[in-house]
């Protein structure tokens, strides 16, 4: 009995490094992007002719900047690097608008501050998609709530449905509180004013000197 146990023990202790190596190798393999074929997406009727004719998502999406969430594509990166070149309008007379100003949101919250990039959003969307129905245009006029977002309101209309999901906290809550406050104070000092003692919930973010490396 004792012998069997000690044999098992010595076997396992000999195999331990191998097990650990297996984990290390298995991890990147398992973390590789995978997409379901059309017939196995749980939505298509396997008897539908579409199953044989439609392009499987993996065939297209595997060509773009990889991600670990959502479609497993960094859509913004794919757009910026020219991997995709989606049309902005169908009619020539359509007024395609963009707006570049960043906003600091969540200035009174506990999580890191959100530096919201209007630029990235307006390359995909029109102003009227958010204003003034989801959010009022005046900074701080709409109380933004994580509770509502998780229920699919406000940012959650897209994030969690088609844009990167709400599991990626740090992609929105991306700026250290002290960095954001230092930027705001510097900007206020330039115009000869002081920041109010009680900050509003949202403010226009001062322009970045240089884009941080991605």
């Amino acid at each position, binding site marked *: 009995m004792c012998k069997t146990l000690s044999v098992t023990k010595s076997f*396992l202790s000999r195999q331990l490094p191998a097990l650990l190596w297996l984990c290390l190798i298995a*991890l990147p393999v398992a973390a590789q992007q995978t997409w379901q074929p059309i017939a196995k*997406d749980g939505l298509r009727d396997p008897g539908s002719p579409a199953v044989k004719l439609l392009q499987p998502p993996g065939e297209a999406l595997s060509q773009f900047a990889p991600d670990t969430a959502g479609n497993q*594509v960094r859509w913004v990166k794919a757009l910026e690097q020219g991997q*995709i070149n989606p049309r902005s*309008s169908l009619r020539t007379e359509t007024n395609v608008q963009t707006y570049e100003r960043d906003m600091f949101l969540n200035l009174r919250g506990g999580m890191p501050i959100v530096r919201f990039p209007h630029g990235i959003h307006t390359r995909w969307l029109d102003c009227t998609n958010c204003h003034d129905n989801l959010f009022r245009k005046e900074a701080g006029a709409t109380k933004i709530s994580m509770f509502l977002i998780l229920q699919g309101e406000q940012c959650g*209309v897209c994030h969690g449905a088609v844009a990167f999901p709400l599991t990626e906290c740090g992609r929105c809550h991306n700026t250290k509180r002290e960095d954001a406050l230092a930027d705001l104070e510097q900007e206020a000092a330039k115009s000869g004013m002081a920041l109010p003692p009680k900050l509003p919930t949202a403010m226009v973010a001062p322009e970045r000197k240089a884009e941080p490396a991605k």
Partner: protein
Amino acid sequence: MTRSRRRAGALSLVLRQALLCLALIVAFVPGAADAEYGDVVLNRFAEKEGMRPVIFPHWFHRIRFRCKVCHFELGFKMRAGSNEVKMNDIIEGRFCGMCHDGQLAWSVENCDLCHSGKAGLPPGIFGGHETLGPGRW
């Protein structure tokens, strides 16, 4: 005494590492039979009219068109299930019909390419995971 304790220690270490290994692999392998992120089921009218529900893949369309093309120019509301899209609209060039006209994209005669969903699917957005939000509209 000490030996059995050591043995127990070694075993629990192995067990812990095996569990960790398993957890990591489970965490990184997506579940089987998952809709692609952002797939929309349109079934307010389709099945009542004797057709399969429509599956709209966001991923395919956003490679070619920015969100604003459909959600601003064509007037699709952002909330899945809030658009009343009838075949008549499409034939007359509204909604999907702006592109699905046989020129830019396949025309309405290719019924089965859009009407391809399983029977009984509720309208809404699918493939959203990890939260209770938009996936549950």
